[in-house]
């Protein structure tokens, strides 16, 4: 079949490119991007004091889990999903509902089911729940690719948001759920911000390890091949649908984990935390850091959080314009980056 020889040739060429690109891309920009972001983050944190640094780092870690997990799908497998925030929300709501206690007075005014589970029991269930939803969604999504994939994942984000907003018997709708339980280890509640940071960092490390394991395994190489040329890899007898579904579910579970941690951290969630815009920001972080690089996602998340929070300290702005200025700078930076470095700060591939 003409197609197969052609496709195999293409695949071989691409794979060769794969090996060559890193050396080529390991240029100045990559080094400088690392240097600037890391030193700026370190300097920023040192100078603003421990308390603020801890708080910011915690949110960085949560966003980093999200970014790394999304990169598995977008960067490595080439499925541009903008619906990731939906799984984040599922994890968060699962944690909120499972761990909330009937003794919280405000939950009685607009009653939702309460379970009062401890954090470490609710956490795996939240993760599995996000995974289960991902299986169903993923089976449907496997029929699509490229541009259509963006659209259907967009649809998923919108549907998820509307369920959070309108399933009032479960989510309290627009009121949101608050007083979400803090993690407890053997009677000792993780209340301090520092302990919480450690907890989140441990989970981030686990997620990074798992991701690293995946992308360096033969499974990861198949994923990369799917991104480069799905038809060609199918010719070799790989059931790409299975691989795509597997990575989709793994990624969704990681996002669910991030959501559960987020809910417990903020102790209050409402549907506004899970709007489509957050999903777009997340994709921006992944692209900013670089596709198909775990380190890039960490760097992207750090750059994003530092930029957002760092702008709080620009003194010459009138108070009521600080917020707007943050958004403008972020937007400009993304545009400039995409113009001059579409592969992201430390990335190897373009979308």
């Amino acid at each position, binding site marked *: 079949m003409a197609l197969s020889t052609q496709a195999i040739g293409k695949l071989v060429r691409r794979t060769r490119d794969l090996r060559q690109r890193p050396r080529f891309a390991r240029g*100045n*920009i990559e080094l400088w991007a690392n240097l600037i972001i890391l030193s700026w983050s370190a300097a920023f944190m040192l100078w603003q004091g421990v308390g*603020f640094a801890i708080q910011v780092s915690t949110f960085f870690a949560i966003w980093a889990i999200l970014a790394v997990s999304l990169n598995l799908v977008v960067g490595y497998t080439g499925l541009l999903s903008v619906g990731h925030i939906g799984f984040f929300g599922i994890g968060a709501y699962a944690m909120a509902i499972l761990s909330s206690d009937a003794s919280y007075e*405000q939950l009685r005014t607009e009653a939702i089911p309460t379970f009062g589970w401890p954090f470490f029991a609710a956490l795996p269930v939240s993760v599995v729940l996000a995974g289960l939803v991902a299986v169903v969604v993923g089976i449907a999504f496997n029929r699509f690719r490229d541009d259509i994939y963006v659209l259907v994942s967009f649809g998923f984000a919108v549907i998820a948001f509307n369920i959070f907003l309108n399933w009032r018997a479960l989510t309290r709708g627009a009121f949101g759920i608050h007083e979400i339980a803090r993690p407890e280890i053997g009677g000792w509640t993780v209340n301090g911000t520092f302990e919480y940071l450690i907890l989140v960092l441990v989970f981030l490390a686990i997620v990074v390890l798992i991701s690293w394991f995946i992308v360096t395994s033969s499974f990861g190489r198949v994923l990369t091949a799917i991104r480069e040329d799905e038809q060609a890899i199918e010719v070799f007898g790989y059931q790409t649908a299975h691989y795509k579904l597997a990575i989709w579910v793994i990624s969704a579970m990681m996002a669910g984990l991030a959501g559960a941690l987020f809910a417990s951290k903020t*102790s*209050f969630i409402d549907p506004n*935390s899970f709007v489509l815009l957050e999903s777009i920001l997340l994709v921006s972080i992944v692209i900013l850091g670089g596709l198909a690089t775990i380190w890039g996602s960490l760097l992207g998340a750090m750059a994003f959080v530092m930029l957002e929070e760092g702008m709080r300290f620009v*003194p010459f702005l009138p108070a009521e314009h600080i*917020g707007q200025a*943050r958004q403008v700078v972020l937007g400009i930076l993304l545009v400039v980056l995409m113009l001059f470095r579409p592969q992201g700060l430390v990335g190897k591939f373009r979308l």
Partner: protein
Amino acid sequence: MSIFSWKRTAALGLLAMLVVAAVGCGEAEPEAPFRIGVMESVTGPGETYGTVAVQSKEMAVAEINAAGGINGRMLELVVEDSKCSAQDAITAYTKLTDVDGVKIILGTSCSGAMLGAAPLAEADGVVMFSGLATNPDIAEAGDYIFRTSLSDATVGVDTGNVLWADGIRKLATISESTDYAEGVRRTTAEHFQSLGGEIVGEERYASDTTDFRTQLEKLLGANPDAVHIAAQSEFTGGTIIKQLRELGYDGPIYADVVPIGTTALEIAGDAATGVKAITPDLDPANAKAQEVLANFKDRYDYVTLPWFLGSAYDNVYIAAECLKKTGDDQDADGFRDCLYEITWSGTIGDNYSFDEKGEVVGLSNAVLEVLPTAERTEENGGYKVLGAAPTG
């Protein structure tokens, strides 16, 4: 290639240095002023409210400082954007308390942000004092959490009373799916039902809806005595009023404050005439309130959300009074005790105080009625105040 990348890195580095340098400069004052934090939603969905609140507070501070400060010490605000989200409120809160070291925070404008930061404030013993957050849940948020804004629960109860007093027995409601609008609808319906009224129809819509005809037809099909609108965006509020009248409904319409805002009235036009809204409002006979509005207009060249503007303004003066008593901006406990004891007469009302939950008492909602288009002016906002809402 390499030249370009050098240029870019140089530019990036320069930018980073500029930012660092710029931040490094703005420190150290010779005479220590009282410093208190402000958290408002300056961007995002609550932007209008947050901006008005910040500007109003800055105006109050400028006045206090121009008059010689508090016991000779100036008052200084540290403003942070908490958006309408718990996450941003938490980082903003930590920045204020940890980096700036403030113990007293005025804000926030969004209930979601308030509920996100309140547990931290409660644990750290930091006072949070809001002029705008209206979610009923905030009442239970803690010992250090205060507000001058009236809980949505009071708006709902007063609306229920007004409906009952006006002889309404069968009510249809339509509400926006946001915490504020949903809170108003819920408490209104509950109180109305407890008085003996019947809810014959209940519809909800998303904030970006533009066509309500199907939902309204459904409501009108149940033959209600009146329709109650709880909206959070003026566009939807105004559109609903307009479409209700277009469908031939000529019965009474009741609403929260949003559907009689300036933009909403522009959209609804003459259809809005006679619509009644139950909401806190500035007393037209209160000279202080009128003066504040005039000053605000002078300073910023616009006036919007007068009640919230006044509430934020009063917060600063109450804070100044308490700082005068405690003489220490780090003494959050003293400040809290002062708030529990204080009785205040300001822009939003006379002789109001705080109960043991930090909820304001002594303020009441007013009943407003929209005027015919010919009589609407910029000064009267397009409505007249019928008086305080009936109680019990």
